[in-house]
């Protein structure tokens, strides 16, 4: 892999940019690998990367049904934060956030992490108490957040209407080191680094079956033939239940559609991320000037990558109330992703009933922020066969045993 640098840019400028090599190879599958990751989204690629980097396991294939980063990794609103209530959530999301800080240097690829600050508005007295509680919990967890006043909210985001008639802003939970990243670049950066370590990223290769012998996985049937392996990591987000079916176990997840949209580009007017959970919408401004907007999920199982139209109306209604300045903006693009929701709205990073078959799923509506931490924890689980401290609480048997990591109560929405 030729490193990207200012020097490389100057060198290529002199040769009409004809010398850039492919960012990653496009190999055909080998007969067998030490480990196979199903799903080349952010979480799958990060898992492969840390398998190589932290554990020296590089005889790895990452299989992707479509194109890499083409699922939820390319469909989210790129918010990165770690201000969670529960200890085990805060630990893994803060690990992810801290890895994002140096991800560009680590991967030699500009992931454009922008720690511009994330603000979660408190617009009811219940929310004020909830976010103050989260701020105290974060202080104990070592996650730097603070509860700020409405005046400070206005200073940080002047276009925000803090005196709305229905839900005036009563304060906010502020994480100054949260922010946004470039979602595609995260997938591309990990893919390039994995390819450079000799891993095979095989796109347009759909897994059709998982084979096992004596309760231990032996390989996968794919549209490009059979591939043998000693270990499998299933990291496929929306279709987790379908791939788990192939392996022969059932997951406590349901798939629903989550939508996002962007406006036409405008001049810079907001340099923080704002989440308004009572009225239910969140917004930030991309470097291109588009307002990046997200809202709620549909309330029914859905595998189409589009959501119900009336949710767009609800989200925009909420955001126009919060940011009156956007009321005349035209919306440019809208899309949906299939998110896998668990009963406690926390992810699953777990061993499974099948030997040497591991699963990483259930990130629901908030997976992008977790990509580096999720990959780190999943790689440790796959390499050692046992979860490390980051993943230990996120096993799939917690539902039977009642050990919930209950972020559905803590966050309510948008998490």
């Amino acid at each position, binding site marked *: 892999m030729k490193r990207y640098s200012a020097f490389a840019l100057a060198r290529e400028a002199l040769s009409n940019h004809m010398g850039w090599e492919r960012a990653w190879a496009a190999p055909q599958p080998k007969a067998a690998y030490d480990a196979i990751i199903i799903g080349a989204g952010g979480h799958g690629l990060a898992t492969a990367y840390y398998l190589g980097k932290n554990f020296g396991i590089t005889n790895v294939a990452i299989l992707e049904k479509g194109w890499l980063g083409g699922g939820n990794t390319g469909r989210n609103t790129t918010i990165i934060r770690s201000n969670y209530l529960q200890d085990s959530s805060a630990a893994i999301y803060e690990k992810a956030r801290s890895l994002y800080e140096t991800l560009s240097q680590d991967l030699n690829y500009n992931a454009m992490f922008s720690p511009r600050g994330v603000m979660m508005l408190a617009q009811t007295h219940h929310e004020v108490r909830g976010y103050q509680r989260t701020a105290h919990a974060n202080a104990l967890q070592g996650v730097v957040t603070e509860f700020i006043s409405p005046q400070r909210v206005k200073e940080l985001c002047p276009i925000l209407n803090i005196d709305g008639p229905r839900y005036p802003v009563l304060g906010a939970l502020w994480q100054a080191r949260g922010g946004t990243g470039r979602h595609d670049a995260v997938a591309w950066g990990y893919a390039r680094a994995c390819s450079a370590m000799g891993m095979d990223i095989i796109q347009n290769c759909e897994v059709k079956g998982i084979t096992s012998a004596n309760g231990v996985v032996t390989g996968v049937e794919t549209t490009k033939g059979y591939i043998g392996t000693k270990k499998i990591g299933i990291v496929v987000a929306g*279709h987790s239940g379908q791939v788990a079916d192939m392996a022969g176990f059932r*997951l406590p997840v349901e*798939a629903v559609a989550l939508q996002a949209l962007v406006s036409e580009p405008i001049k810079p007017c907001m340099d923080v991320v704002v989440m308004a959970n009572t009225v239910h919408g969140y917004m930030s401004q991309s470097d291109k000037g588009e307002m990046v907007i997200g809202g709620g999920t549909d*309330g*029914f*199982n*859905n595998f*189409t990558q589009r959501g119900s139209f*009336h949710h767009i109306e609800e989200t925009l209604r909420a955001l126009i109330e919060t940011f009156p300045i956007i009321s005349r903006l035209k919306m440019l693009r809208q899309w949906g992703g299939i998110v896998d929701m668990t009963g406690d709205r926390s992810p699953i990073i777990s061993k499974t009933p099948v030997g040497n078959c591991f699963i990483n799923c259930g990130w629901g509506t908030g997976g992008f922020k977790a990509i580096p931490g999720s990959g780190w924890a999943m790689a440790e689980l796959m390499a050692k066969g046992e979860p490390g401290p980051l993943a230990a609480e996120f096993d799939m048997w917690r*539902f039977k045993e009642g050990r919930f990591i209950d972020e559905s109560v803590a966050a309510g929405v948008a998490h």
Partner: protein
Amino acid sequence: MLTLECPYCGIMADETELSPGYEAHLKRYGPGSSDEEFEAYMFARKNPKGVHFERWRHAYGCGKWFLAARDTATLEVFGTYPAQSAGPPQALQDKIKAKRPDWKGYK
């Protein structure tokens, strides 16, 4: 927009006047059941990519709960039927089977 016919009041109801209630025909487990049964009832929902049977409530209409058969991959609605049904009516199952020959049937 998703549109379902309420089997009680006969109205073609838009999604905005309905409340979703997720999987239909759940067998309820409570005290005395095993951990596995209770976990499956609470959390291990059917999550098919394809034919799915669901509960819906005509919340902003007659208020009644009813059941619907729908394809989660295409959003096609096969039909609705009263909540007081132990399983999907045979006529509806036949209709789905005609449209989806690969469907493995109601389990």
